[in-house]
């Protein structure tokens, strides 16, 4: 392979965004399941929105928020951080688009847990965070693993929102997905197919790893 820079950029973006999705997704899922049903419905809708909106629409929203004149963009600029047309922007785009997958999968896993187990923990004097750490997280692990793989795969494949926010700058923000688009648009089919194979292999092996991990975790249920 002549130049693996797009792959490195893709992996870097996907790993960083997955890391954020992991922590924020698990915490958000935990937090939302503790709220009243009305708030749950509202937040569920809000947090799932990026999953159902066209990525270009999400990208546009992000541009408005993080642009030079955007609410968050202004604050970040004053700290010397530029988001638009940078790899940080690509991470934000990948995170926002893939976060709902983590949030929804983990929330479903939390909801699967018999509420009597949580009650039992409370009656036994366990603090809420202790119940989260020692009961809810271990029992939701298969769901968390599934969420991780889905989030990683979605981040790796992100195209639309990334293009809108971070652009398609070779060597800087050009990911594998963007590279495939650029190559095939330029008629370089063999290059496009090479990169397509790389993406397929990475995606397949992460799904395989997930299934292995879940099989291991299910040992006591």
């Amino acid at each position, binding site marked *: 392979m002549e130049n693996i820079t797009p792959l490195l950029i893709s992996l870097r973006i996907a790993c960083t965004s997955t890391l954020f999705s992991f922590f924020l997704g698990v915490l958000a899922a935990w937090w939302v399941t503790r709220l009243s049903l009305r708030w749950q419905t509202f937040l569920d809708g809000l947090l799932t929105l990026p999953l159902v909106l066209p990525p270009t629409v999400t990208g546009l929203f992000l541009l408005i928020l993080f642009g030079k004149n955007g609410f968050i963009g202004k604050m970040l600029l004053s700290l010397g951080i530029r988001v638009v047309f940078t790899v940080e922007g690509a991470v934000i785009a990948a995170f926002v688009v893939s976060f709902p997958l983590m949030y929804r999968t983990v929330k479903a896993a939390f909801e699967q847990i*018999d509420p*009597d*187990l949580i*009650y*039992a*923990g*409370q*009656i*036994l*004097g*366990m*603090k809420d965070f202790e119940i989260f750490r*020692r*009961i809810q997280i*271990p*029992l939701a692990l298969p769901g968390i693993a599934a969420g991780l793989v889905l989030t990683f795969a979605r981040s790796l494949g992100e195209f639309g929102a990334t293009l809108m926010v971070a652009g398609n700058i070779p060597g800087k923000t050009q990911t594998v997905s963007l590279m495939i688009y650029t190559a095939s648009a330029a008629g370089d089919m063999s290059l496009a197919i090479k990169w397509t194979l790389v993406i397929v292999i990475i995606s397949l092996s992460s799904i395989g790893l997930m299934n292995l991990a879940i099989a291991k975790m299910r040992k*006591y*249920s």
Partner: protein
Amino acid sequence: MSFDIDIQKDAGDFHLDVKLKEDAPVITGLLGASGCGKSMTLKCVAGIITPDKGKIVVNGETYFDSEKGINLKPQERKTGYLFQNYALFPNMTVEENIAAGISRKDFSKEKIQAEIKRFGLSGKEKLHPSALSGGQQQRCALARIFIRDPNILMLDEPFSALDSSLRWSLQQDLLQFLKDYNRSILFVSHSRDEIYMLCENAGVMEEGRLIDYDSTKRLFAHPRTRAALSLTGCRNISPVKASGEKRALFTDWDLELELNHPIKPGILFGGIRAHYFTPCRKEDVNAIEIEVVQVINEPFASNILFKKKGVHPKQLMCWRVSHDQIKDLTEFPSYLQILPENILLVE
């Protein structure tokens, strides 16, 4: 060792209204059909559900008082709760489950070992709950509760998830553990046998309300309400109307019987326990000339459904007789008697 519970809660079209009070460490039973609010009552005491109004005081400590604005968290109440399915943490071993309820400063290996031994779980310390039998799971859950020495112990239908063959031996096991446990115990069940076997006092619940509350013996011998009558296992219940000084008409059976006392105001139903009928002669008091309609056999007893000869009643009566008793009978008796003192009259 006492408790004083007086709570009300509105949950949609369900209204919970329960008053329970004990001054001695006894086992108090709550008998009721599923959905009558008995588990909800326990969850209120444990702090899982918050009542709208009232108070919950255990051993002099106020857990909940709507007037004073007191509502302790479940973690602060130190209660013991045995769930129907035991609620053991599936990701933890037996040992870890038992240790889950003790704080780091109270943690001691010896204490855990002592409970493991007491509940017959030696050798199972490193197993996960899924590797235990139903009985072992229940003992593990009890060990996890007992190690915390709770102020009040609540048992929520602890036998309903078990086969009947296993149930008997587990009931005996539990009786052993509870016998010398000097604490208040609330026991919830829909089984009158379990309530009768385990509880000194018992209440009957119907649609969220506690409608009868007495010593278990008195509750079964002299139920005061129709629900108590039917939940304590009375199969023959009919509306009743006074038809003379000490006589009453049981309208569903088209039957008039002599009573011990005149019917008091407020009495609406009469009940006859199915095993209280005895064969008799025509001239005996309350002799009923019977016509057998159907016989339903159980392994060791028969339920003989009959009516008074020559009438078309709304309901049949049931005479329950053990097979030993009818062994010598070649045919059904023509007359059955119910003694006036065995007729139960309720509101």
